[in-house]
Each structure stands twice: as structure tokens, then as C-alpha cells.
């Protein structure tokens, strides 16, 4: 790689067994037109610092493992290229708003717990309870298109790293989980809206959002969580007004 350009990359390190807090380490990394941030980290691990830890798997923006802060902005390392930072220095830090486990590895179990909490699966209506497994649910192309965009989430956590409300209040259910909640709510095969409403309509549900909009800005899969949350607010407010005039 003799003709490669060189980029100064500063990486946040944190070794729990010996460090009290994270520190920075800078490396000169050669790169060419196709070098991704993930490959730059491989290079650092292979040539300079074998102990550098980071999570990755598919290298094609499908698994959602390699979310990290690149120059302060949440990105998937595999989908971010050094050529787009040419002439600038690069800093790589662990995903914000999550506890740092080691180096660039964060603990996203809170995100996973919240996704589980909102019941992200089809809850059939009472009339479909005994429907045989061999029988399919009907869905028109439009009914599928209604939620398709919101179903593209890969749980990478970039939107949580971008969310000031989650930063300030860790009880907030957050962009990815609320988007998934809305996605199942509007699925015509699902009848779980009433069950999920306690999460959707709570203080820490859609009402914890102040429409900063950065989640949609950084989402690597263009899911647009901010849109799902605003639509969730409209749904929650509509339910509220209906209930005001129609007591049980």
C-alpha cells in the first residue's frame, strides 16, 4: 500500500481492568478510496494495537453491530468511508448515551430490553386466536407499504446515541423501540394496539420526545424514527380525545 494516503485517526480507549476513565490514542492509518472506518480499525488492530476492542459482524450494514461516533456523529463503521473525511482528522468514539464496556464496545442491553418491552411481534386478534398455522393473513401492497419503512431497523443504536432526550432521561423508551411499536400498531395483521398503548402513551413513550429530529438524520437505514414518533403522537392524542368523550 505504497501509494496510499494517510489519515490521523484518534480512537477512544478504555480498559476497565486498568483505566479509571477513557483516554485517546492517535494512529496514522493508510487508506485508499474504498477503506471504511471498520477496515481502518482492523488496520489499527493488526499493526499497532492488538488489544483494541470493537464490535462488528456482517461488514454490509445489515447486522447493526458496528455503530460508533465518527467525528461526534453516530455512524455504522462499515458504511462510513475515510474518503469522505479527506483532509480532515478523524476521531472515533464509542456510541454515546450507552455505558462504555471496553474501548469502542458499549452495552446496549437497555435498548434491547426496551425493544422487548414494547412487544415487537404480531399479536393476533381474538377472532384469529385459533387460526391454523397453515392459513395466511391477507395484506394489500398498501397495507404493507404503510409500515415497511419502519420495519427496516437493524437495532444499531445510532438513534439512541443521537437522542438528547435519551441522554437526559434513560427511562425514555427511545426512537428505535417507539418506531417498532408504531410499526406493529399499524400492521393490519396485528391487534395489539391496546396492549402497547401503555408504552406508546406514557410520559416515557412518545411524549418523552421533543422532535429534535437528529435520530432520522443519522439513521443508517433511513427508517425515519422521528416520523414514526410524531405519527405515534397523533395516534396517542386521537385516542386521548376519543376517550375524553367516551368513558368506558
Amino acid at each position, binding site marked *: 500500500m505504497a501509494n496510499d494516503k494517510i489519515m490521523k485517526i484518534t480512537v477512544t480507549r478504555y480498559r476497565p481492568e486498568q483505566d479509571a476513565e477513557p483516554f485517546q490514542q492517535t494512529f496514522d492509518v493508510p487508506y485508499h478510496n474504498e477503506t471504511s472506518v471498520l477496515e481502518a480499525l482492523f488496520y489499527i488492530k493488526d499493526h499497532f494495537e492488538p488489544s483494541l476492542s470493537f464490535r462488528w459482524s456482517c461488514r454490509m450494514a445489515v447486522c447493526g453491530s458496528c455503530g460508533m461516533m465518527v467525528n461526534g456523529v453516530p455512524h455504522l463503521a462499515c458504511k462510513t468511508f475515510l474518503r469522505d473525511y479527506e483532509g480532515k482528522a478523524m476521531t472515533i468514539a464509542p456510541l454515546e448515551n450507552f455505558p462504555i464496556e471496553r474501548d469502542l464496545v458499549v452495552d446496549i442491553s437497555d435498548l434491547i430490553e426496551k425493544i422487548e418491552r414494547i412487544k415487537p411481534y404480531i399479536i393476533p386478534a381474538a377472532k384469529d386466536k385459533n387460526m391454523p398455522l397453515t392459513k395466511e393473513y391477507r395484506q394489500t401492497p398498501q397495507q404493507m407499504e404503510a409500515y415497511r419503512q419502519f420495519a427496516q431497523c437493524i437495532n444499531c443504536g445510532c438513534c439512541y446515541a443521537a437522542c438528547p432526550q435519551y441522554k437526559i432521561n434513560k*427511562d425514555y423508551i427511545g426512537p428505535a423501540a417507539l418506531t417498532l411499536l408504531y410499526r406493529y400498531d399499524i400492521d393490519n395483521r396485528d391487534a395489539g394496539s391496546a396492549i402497547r398503548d401503555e408504552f406508546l*402513551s*406514557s410520559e416515557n413513550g412518545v411524549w418523552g420526545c421533543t422532535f429534535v429530529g437528529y435520530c432520522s438524520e443519522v439513521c443508517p437505514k433511513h427508517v425515519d424514527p422521528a416520523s414514526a414518533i410524531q405519527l405515534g403522537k397523533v395516534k396517542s392524542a386521537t385516542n386521548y380525545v376519543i376517550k375524553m368523550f367516551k368513558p368506558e
Partner: protein
Amino acid sequence: MHSNRSDEPIYWLLFGAGGMAVGVVLPAIVILMIVAGFQDVGEASGMLNFHQVGAVLGNWLLSAVLFGVIMLTAWHACHRIYHTLHDLTIRVTKLHWFVFYGLAAAITFAAAALQFLIYCQLW
């Protein structure tokens, strides 16, 4: 875990309507106030003169629209300020809530009372 149903929708709807009022109607009203500020306004001459504003406040429809703008702007602004306190990592309490939403309610009540009073006198 808070799972109780939030009363936020009611304030959010007022906030949203207020955001529309501030974005769509308020710029023109501010322009009128700036123009009036540059003029020597008399009883029946100049921008926002006494008779002109009297005609607005004496017309039930125009007065209701003005009341709507004042009220919705108040709810919009107070709601947003209250939430921004939280954004600035200030620990918001019930007291903050009463101060800001109380202010919005007070502005609503004052505008309604004054405009109703003016309307009745002019009628």
C-alpha cells in the same frame, strides 16, 4: 417505569396549534407593530390607530381570531419553555409546571376577559 397514561396530548395539541399561529400569522402582526412603531399614530391616522384597532376588536370574528392567536401563542411558548428547561438538564418540578402552564392559563383568561369587555362596550 412510568406506564400511567400521560395528559400530554391536550398540551401538545395546544402547542401544535400555537406553532402554526406563530409560524403563519404572527410574522404579519409583528410587521404591523414595527410599522406602527415608526409612525406618529393618532386617533384615526397611522398604522394600528385607535379606530382601526377598535374596528378589529369590535368585530366578533376578527376579535376571536386575535384571541386565538394570543392564546395559542401563549400555550405554545409556555409549553416549549417548560420542556426546554428539562433539555438544559434543570430538574423540573411540579412548581415549574404550575408557573408556566399557569402563565398560559392567565394570559388566556386575561385576553378573553379584556376582549369581551371591549367588544361589549363598543357594541
